[in-house]
């Protein structure tokens, strides 16, 4: 079985600070990491490959330094990695991003399952997976908390939704977006890490994918960002400093005094 896992390099949002004046993120000096959800996507593919045989190919679209996340995936055990990188890809919205990723899946060929993380911790749209499926015209199953069964042309998966769990049977090939409930990602092995450090990672650009300029990057992006605003904090918090005992007494007083509900 052949798996493609698409992964994204994101700024470590735990380290991101906000430019108070402009209301934008300060990305400078913020370390880049593998989108945490994508680790679970990689792990899921590795587990099924280990069980059924086949291969796991990781793909990311991004600037040259995004290959770092591919090396992390290889260290965990992915077989191959491909970087989609081209000046023409810059400024892509979710549509252009998923068009590009979908084309890479087609070019890889014979893919049975595409796995994405539930969402990226920076963009947060959770659109990329579904949009890849639409572009490939494959079935999609989102918010997968457990893949029950895979093989013989079908997948059975549990979709965790707000009011319960849906069990979905889909034909292959399929695109799934995965929740953290599905597994616990492994740590990289020493051998994997050494392989990853040495591996030559192929870079595919717009010509390799046979895409037209109008379909990728900024030109292929119908989204226009009109305004970026920081939402108003909904209620004024208070910060009290002191010894834990004192603070606890203060909270109890406020609760009993009915000031706080």
């Amino acid at each position, binding site marked *: 079985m052949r798996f493609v896992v698409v992964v994204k390099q994101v700024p470590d949002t735990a380290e991101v600070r906000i430019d108070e004046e402009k209301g934008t993120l300060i990305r400078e000096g913020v370390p880049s990491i593998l989108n945490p959800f994508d680790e679970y996507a990689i792990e899921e593919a590795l587990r099924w490959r280990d069980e059924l045989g086949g291969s796991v190919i990781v793909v990311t679209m991004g600037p040259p330094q995004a290959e770092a996340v591919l090396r992390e995936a290889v260290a965990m055990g992915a077989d191959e990695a491909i970087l989609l990188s081209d000046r023409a890809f810059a400024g892509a919205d979710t549509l252009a991003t998923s068009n590009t990723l979908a084309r890479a899946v087609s070019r890889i060929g014979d893919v049975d399952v595409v796995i994405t993380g539930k969402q990226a911790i920076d963009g947060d749209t959770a659109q990329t997976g579904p949009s890849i499926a639409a572009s490939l015209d494959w079935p999609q199953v989102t918010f997968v908390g457990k893949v029950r069964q895979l093989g013989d042309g079908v997948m059975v998966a549990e979709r965790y939704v707000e009011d319960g769990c849906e069990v979905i049977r889909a034909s292959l090939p399929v695109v799934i977006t995965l929740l953290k409930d599905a597994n616990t990602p492994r*740590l*990289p092995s020493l051998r*994997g890490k050494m392989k990853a450090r040495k591996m030559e990672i192929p870079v595919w650009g717009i010509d390799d994918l046979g895409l037209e300029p109008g379909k990728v990057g900024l030109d292929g992006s119908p989204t226009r960002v009109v305004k970026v605003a920081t939402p108003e904090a909904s209620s004024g918090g208070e910060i009290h400093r002191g010894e834990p005992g004192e603070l606890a007494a203060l909270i109890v007083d406020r609760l009993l005094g009915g000031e706080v509900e």
Partner: protein
Amino acid sequence: MKIIKGRKKILELCVDLLYDESSLSGAWCEAAAWPETPEEAAGYFESCRADGLPVTISGGLTGIAGGALPQGGAVLSTSRMNGIEILDNGNVRAGAGVTLAELREFLSRASSEHFYPPDPTEETATVGGTVSTDASGSDSFLYGSTRNWVESLTILPPSGKLLKIRRNDYTFRDGTCRHPDLGELVLPALRREQPPKNTAGYHIRPEMDLTDLFIGSEGTLGLVMEAELRLRRKPGVLADLVLFPGDSGTFWELFHTFLENRDRLGLRALEMMDGKCIEFLGAESTPGLPSPPPGASAALPARIEAENDRELENALLLVDDLMTRFGIPPDMVWIGLEPAERKKIKDFRHALPEAVNRRISMLRSEIPGIHKFGSDGAVPPVTLETYYETCRAILTDLDLEFLIFGHAGQGHLHANVLPGNPEEMSRAGEAMREIAREAVKAGGTISAEHGLGRLKAGFMPIMYSREEIEGMEKLRRAIDPDGFLAPALQIGGAS
């Protein structure tokens, strides 16, 4: 200065002063204060003296030996002594109450190049507390204990007259040191040199620096108000590894090979979790953390530091060779290079003491008074295997539930016992004493990093002769003639 007086008020407003990580109960006191300046602290000393209240110093309360828990008298908390600054000489000066987390945070802003090496795991420990217990931790394999990083100390001794002691200002000559304020201090002559990693009793070397007497003195000689600490340049790259050998024979061979190659590997830490730990972690898995791989008999966590990628590559190739030589399959060696991966390995290691503590709290809710027992002895690392087997035999013979882990590279193990009932508690106490005896027999110490506190002081006679202990008490009385500080901590144990 904030002061709270009266036993009832203490219980009401700052009961947290009566608990630390030793899980000892029964602490109490008459008063507590939070001075910010030397003047306030000296004033508090004076008023306590007038009221006949001896003083126990309280830091981050992460201590495992219970030294910060008062048995009456007054408590002085350092939590408001939190000034911190980089000095022109590149050192950092920090108030006693600065926590290691705050220090790390401050340094990461002030200097991207340097860090403070001592890392005794628990980051809410304070500068004053770690200096006073001479704290270590896994990285002390390479960096040594806190002692190695202290350049000068500001100390308020029981006399109330502030002292600044800088390294090389005052040294002992042939066991004697004369200081204008402290008078003549005489170290007891020891039958044998203290082991390299040791927190049992005062630090004693006939030609040592005066600062070294205060470091590790557990609040018995003075209040550490402030410390000037040395920093170290950050290494280029770090790798965290966990090796999971399939049988204990391989584990020990691997351990010795790592020790022999410590320089070639650039080893910063070399740890151990035994088979029981692996079983325990497998059973009490923590969400989001990988479980130990099936078939693992024990774990050997190691940290490697290197100047650059090439150097790291060489170290990793050596580890790879060892894997081949010892037949360890690829998925039995984890590695973390990226911060997120390294954090997972750190979390994996910390999950163990946390899981133990969770289990103990559960037990305690059924059987009040139950607490964990942990040994803190160390032996010369080359004899660790024998010491480990002896610990196991002692605990197995006494039919106790236990697990053993620790800073193997320094010959230092924590044998943790989880007693299920009061009867097992008393057997556990017996086991701890027995293990302490074995450590000393092997040329080691009864306490390598946690200090004596109230838990280990009773073991002093195992390690020192009566004359040696009396010599330490005499030294203490020379600085604190009327037992004003740390009254509950008796160096020779309660007799």
